[in-house]
């Protein structure tokens, strides 16, 4: 922590200048942040400002729009980009109650979505921004290698299973790590010693107020660092009672350090992240804010955006309209200029309800339409829908990552360490995580099976989420968005219809109607 602080104090956040940090790995401290809010975007109260550490750290007593206290945290990254350092704030939300029972075991950003933590999908997309390349679904396309012409480091491709070396195995399916590849990996940092405008790795600090850092530190590190984004993880947990509204002021100083705009992202969202395009769009129109919007079929369930077709200038917002006004809704991703910070009050407010409408009236808010799929994966039902859309997109962009073979139907993502038995029918729209064992004669459709789960023979699963280390018995039938928390045992020959099972439970009786099993 001290090192991080020292590093941050030493260098300026803005300029992509030489990075010199004590410690084995080089990094330009570009980063931050904070644990705060559902602060900025859904208004919350920044109640603590940790001035003594001189670190851009804020913790929010976060009141979400519902007015309930939530231990929220958000994390920020700063990304060097050709036009200057851009920062990003990712709102990772509070306890993640909608995604229970999965979030009773793990913080929401670390829940695997298509075999990669939710958070990482966005972080990789952000990390790819500076290479200037188009970002594919699930992350980047190039390796972390040094671009000799431009002199900076470009990100590596996301790996399906951590041990594989990205430079040897660009598709990430090679299996156990080749020890000689350490050289390549270590080479990410090479060339950063000494002067020169090379290598700006990302430094990512995550501060979780909802979960003790000791619990998470190893986990987060294990999860994110193998992806070789050159991101260094630091953890902190604030135990002291939340204080006053300092952190908002903090964020204001922090983000207005430079005149560069910053991203604000909702971590629950999955799509084909167009961060590069968003940045360009924002600079192009030069106003204070840009919102990513997406077209949906039933806009009246959401808040609708009315905008001009050619320029994208937003005229107004309408919450849940009764008649058809527009079919574009707020996709939960914004690019804001630091000037926006002056509009934010130190009260629990919602940025969509109070700040944006004002900005729209003043003509300062522009909308960019998202191409491709979009889904808010905060609930199990939508989590599965989002998985289907994501896999479909993967089929078009990176079909080699999907599995094929006897018994595999449609879009199926299988971790290389998963085992599938004989006479199975897997798919369409299934993702099997690392260490999953599927015995003979199992039929799985439209499900997510998380790490180390074990599905015994002749079972039939449709539209389920099977949590980590679960054991599902033989001849079990599960359907209708049944969610099993961590380490659940389901006895043989049962029927689960829409059951939501809390972790470590043992189910001995059928559940014919949807309910929660505690």
């Amino acid at each position, binding site marked *: 922590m001290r090192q991080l602080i020292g590093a941050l104090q030493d260098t300026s956040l803005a300029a992509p200048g030489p990075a010199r940090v004590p410690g084995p790995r080089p990094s330009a401290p570009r980063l931050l942040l904070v644990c705060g809010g559902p602060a900025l975007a859904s208004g919350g109260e920044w109640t603590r400002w940790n001035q003594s550490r001189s670190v851009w750290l804020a913790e929010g007593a976060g009141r979400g729009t519902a007015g309930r206290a939530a231990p929220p945290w958000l994390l920020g990254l700063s990304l060097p980009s050709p036009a200057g350092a851009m920062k990003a704030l990712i709102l990772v939300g509070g306890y993640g109650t909608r995604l229970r029972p999965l979030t009773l075991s793990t913080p929401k950003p670390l829940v695997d979505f298509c075999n990669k933590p939710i958070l990482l999908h966005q972080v990789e997309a952000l990390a790819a921004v500076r290479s200037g390349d188009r970002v594919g679904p699930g992350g980047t396309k190039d390796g972390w290698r040094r671009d000799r012409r431009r002199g900076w480091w470009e990100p590596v491709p996301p790996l399906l299973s951590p041990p594989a070396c990205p430079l040897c195995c660009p598709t990430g399916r090679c299996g156990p790590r080749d020890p000689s590849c350490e050289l390549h990996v270590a080479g990410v940092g090479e060339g950063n010693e000494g002067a020169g405008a090379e290598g700006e790795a990302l430094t990512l600090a995550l501060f979780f107020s909802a979960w003790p850092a000791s619990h998470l530190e190893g986990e987060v590190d294990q999860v994110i660092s193998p992806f070789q984004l050159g991101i260094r993880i630091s953890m902190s947990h604030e135990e002291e009672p939340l204080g006053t509204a300092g952190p908002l002021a903090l964020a204001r100083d922090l983000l207005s350090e430079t005149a560069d705009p910053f991203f604000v992202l909702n971590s629950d969202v999955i799509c084909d992240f167009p961060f590069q395009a968003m940045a360009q769009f924002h600079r192009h129109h030069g106003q204070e804010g840009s919102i990513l919007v997406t077209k949906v079929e039933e806009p009246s369930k959401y808040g609708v955006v009315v905008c001009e077709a050619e320029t994208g200038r937003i005229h107004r917002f309408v919450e849940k309209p009764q008649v058809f006004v527009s079919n574009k809704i707020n996709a939960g991703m914004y690019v804001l200029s630091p000037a926006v910070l002056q509009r934010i009050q130190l009260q629990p407010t919602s940025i969509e309800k109070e700040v944006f409408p004002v900005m729209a009236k003043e003509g300062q808010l522009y909308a960019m339409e998202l191409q491709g799929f979009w889904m808010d994966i905060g609930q199990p039902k939508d989590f599965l829908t989002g998985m289907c859309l994501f896999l479909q997109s993967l089929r078009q962009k990176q079909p080699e990552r999907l599995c094929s073979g006897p018994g595999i139907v449609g879009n199926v993502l299988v971790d290389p360490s998963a085992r599938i038995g004989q006479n199975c029918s897997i798919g369409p729209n299934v993702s099997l995580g690392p260490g999953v064992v599927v015995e003979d004669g199992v039929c799985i459709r439209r499900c997510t099976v998380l790490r180390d789960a074990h599905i015994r023979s002749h079972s039939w699963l449709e539209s389920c989420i099977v949590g980590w280390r679960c054991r599902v018995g*033989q001849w079990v039938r599960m359907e209708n968005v049944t969610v099993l928390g961590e380490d659940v045992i389901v006895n043989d020959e049962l029927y689960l219809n829409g059951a939501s099972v809390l972790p470590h439970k043992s189910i001995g009786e059928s559940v014919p109607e949807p309910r929660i099993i505690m």
Partner: protein
Amino acid sequence: MIQHHIEACAQVPGMQEILLIGFYQPDEALTQFLEAAQQEFHLPIRYLQEFAPLGTGGGLYHFRDQILAGGPEAFFVLNADVCSDFPLNAMLDAHRRQRHPFLLLGTTANRTQSLNYGCIVENPQTHEVLHYVEKPSTFISDIINCGIYLFSPEALKPLRDVFQRNQQDGQLEDSPGSWPGAGTIRLEQDVFSALAGQGQIYVHLTEGIWSQIKSAGSALYASRLYLGRYQITHPERLAKHSPGGPRIRGNVYIHPTAKVAPSAVLGPNVSIGKGVTVGEGVRLRESIVLHGATLQEHTCVLHSIVGWGSTVGRWARVEGTPNDPNPNDPRARMDSESLFKDGKLLPAITILGCRVRIPAEVLILNSIVLPHKELSRSFTNQIIL
């Protein structure tokens, strides 16, 4: 069902002949069955069809000449819709000790359930029936009528009296439709209730298995009782696990012509009929599979009856809810067999009629599917016409 009755009768030494009396229209299947039974048990077996439904006793009186032909010492009267271990020899011994016109087989039931059956009040020393009420509305006795009787030829005299009385009463009535037709005798109400306490009717109590088979669901319970009995009387009929064969748990009957895949797991209390095909990885428990049915791979059939010639698709789940009597109470009997309660279908055994086709990967739960139906989706708690 009646093969159990016939088999039990054939084991009584001195059994002369078996007569089946009913209103049922005989067909090819029945004729063949009777021929096969005759050859197996070496007894003449005949079916006598009533000209009209004559109630539980009318047929006895109507065919009295056939019954008494050959001067039998006594004749057993068995209701076809019961499941029992048929202690006929014990009844015969009791009858020979003291000859009375009527000997009933009785068993015990608990207080609330006895109201669904015929209740007998007996004299504990002499075993005479002092009082008899069929399906009372208040508690009379916890001894119930099993529907298995032993009559001596003198029993026909009271039957004649009842018959003649009914005829006279019938002529006094205007509309023939309302009164039970001429010739109808209800054994329980007309004969037993009337003669109780007059030294003519006696009861023999049994502790063995007994159940009434009124609904298809109770057939499963009866099947379990019979399979349990086979462990004692005919253990060779029960399937055993053999290498290369399906895994067997508990009491399972598999017809020799059935084809069962080795990876299937059967039991407890499963009965597989003639020519049935059971695919790989099938799980069968507490179920009856009738002739010619097919269960495809990975299906799970629990507490169900699969009708003749039906097909169940891959990964389908056919499940019912057992309504068995409380196993902890030895005197518990099947409850009254109503399908609905408060307008909702009570969860019960799932029944697939003949030639029903269930598609792959669906769930049929607590439902009744009428014959020849081809389903296209899952059903729960429904009667599918």
